[in-house]
């Protein structure tokens, strides 16, 4: 999706104002002029300057505020994009309770099938790949990946 420069510019200016309001609450360090507010304050000023230039440029260019990229008109590709994001979101929410191995297998199977891998191959590869990654990180590198529902079988 291509966004008109003016929209980005307005967003940056709004962000800058939010920063400027937020840093009013930052404390001053006694005896010093430069506290924690100065650096974010300067960044905010930078956003206002660049944001204004973007607004001017965007208004001059004048094309629609949003322009859909070709892939956004292909439903299959949009769901591809969303599924990758959903896979990560699913891991964030479910991995703790479900455990790494079931979550990993589910994510891989879903993505494989969506990307056009055959069902049997998808299932076998998903299980093998998840177990190999688990072995590498849990056993060799000692990363405490969650066991979840498989707690009883932990090794």
């Amino acid at each position, binding site marked *: 999706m*291509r*966004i008109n420069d003016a929209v*980005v510019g307005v967003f*940056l200016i709004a962000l800058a104002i939010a*920063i400027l309001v*937020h*840093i009013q609450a*930052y*404390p001053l*360090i006694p005896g*010093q*002029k*430069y*506290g*924690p507010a100065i*650096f*974010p304050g300067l*960044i905010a000023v*930078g*956003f206002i300057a*660049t944001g204004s*230039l*973007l607004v001017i*440029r965007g208004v001059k260019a004048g094309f629609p505020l949003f322009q859909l*990229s070709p*892939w956004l008109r*292909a439903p299959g*590709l*949009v769901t*591809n*994009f969303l*599924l*990758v*994001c959903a*896979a*990560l*979101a699913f*891991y*964030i929410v479910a991995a*703790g309770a479900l455990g*790494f191995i079931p979550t*990993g297998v589910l*994510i*891989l199977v879903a*993505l*494989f099938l969506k*990307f*056009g*891998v055959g069902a049997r*191959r998808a299932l076998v*590869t998903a299980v093998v*790949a*998840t177990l190999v*990654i688990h072995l590498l*990180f849990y056993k060799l*590198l*000692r*990363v*405490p*990946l969650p066991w979840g529902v498989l707690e009883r079988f932990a090794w």
Partner: protein
Amino acid sequence: METVAAAFGLVFEPYTLFVILLAAIFGLFVGAVPGLTATMATALLVPVTFFMPPVPAIAALVTATAMAIFSGDIPGALMRIPGTPASAAYTDESYMMTKNGEAETVLGADLVFSVIGGIFGTIVLVFAAPTLAEIALKFSSFEYFWLVLLGLTCAVIITIGDTLKGIVSLLAGLLISAIGLDNPAGFPRFTFGSIELLGSVGLIPMMIGMFAVSEILRYAVSVGDGAEVFRKQIGNVFRGMWGLCVKYPWSILRGSVLGTAIGALPGAGADIAAWMSYAVSKRMSKTPEKFGTGHVEGIVEAGAANNSALAGAWIPALVFGIPGDSITAIVIGVLYIKGMNPGPTLFINSPANVYAVFLVFFLANLLLVPLGWAAIKAARRILEVPRNLLMPIILLFCIVGSFAINNTVFAVIVILVFGVAAYFMEENGYPVAPAILGVILGSMLEENFVTSMIKSDGRFLGFFERPIAAGLGIITILVWLLPLAQWLLARRRAARA
């Protein structure tokens, strides 16, 4: 001499050599698969190197990137798809040569001149870094402030495309660097009550998101590319290479020098080095009309340039902690984790480790000859690995890798947010490199600014009172004025016409 011997001991140890070999194979594979970049190889390796001693960890990163930048040329020549962005500059030219029946020559040139460029860059690194470090020992907060500012300025100006968007990207990076407790006042900023955000966003998960997850998203929305792999047995790739060396000595030298220099400039790395070298080669050539028809000259020059840029980027990274490209941006994170904090004192406190890094650079470039040859031989098999199987596995790897850094799911949130953000940034022409540099250098910029302001009692002139600081300051301001001067000049010309 003792330190050199110690460095040899650190590198030529079975464990380190084994790590180098594995990293080499990994790098060759990642580089050769289109859609997987050298930076992504680095980001994916970090969680694994996390558990190694410093020297093998750094060796793995150096070797994998050197291999990946070369092997990115292979699909360029055989499929007309660059394996990494660093090969994009001469992909069309390489493919034309393959179509003209010169596959051996182009792949041989890719390999041989990658090695020569890589070794050239390494030699410059070995001589320049310690010398610069000695000068840098005398630097105070004023010099560092200007140096960081100059680095950030370069990152914005050199990026291909829009300077304004580069500045926005840089500011966004600086804003992210402001999150958390890590500021001169030790005051929690923009944490909104989150405990995780106290320690800021976490550089490595952020990089995994921006360089690996965003690539997976790009794959997910690309219509299945039916690019055909060029099917032909590749013969002896080394035939005729000596002839090319004799024919194009200046191209090789120019490419290597320019590549090292671009690499050393913050924010620009192997890909920009290749584009610029290819353009220079065409302009300086006696036969510029042959460019684009399957002519090897530009490939010789740009192939040397992108590999020499890798070593060049390490110069500011080791000496000042200012990354020369996105790969060294990740490396700096690893150096801190390994207790090898970059800076001039690194050369005094752990010289053996520094020399070991130099040695690894030589070793990796020399290993590139046999392993690169093997990769060319195995090219067809690597290029036929189904990407619909590969990409989901890499995603799972990203999840585990980012989780492994701090053992929190927060890192997975970070890779999701930054993966999507980087994807949309690139789609709208906002370069990612300045943002990364902003995140890495933000706290350094603020700290040196505040310290300097306190030292000079708030007088801005204090920033120009020491000779080196004044010099750096003037250069920085001149670089700022450059685009303005160009703009004014263009307007004047337009008014006259």
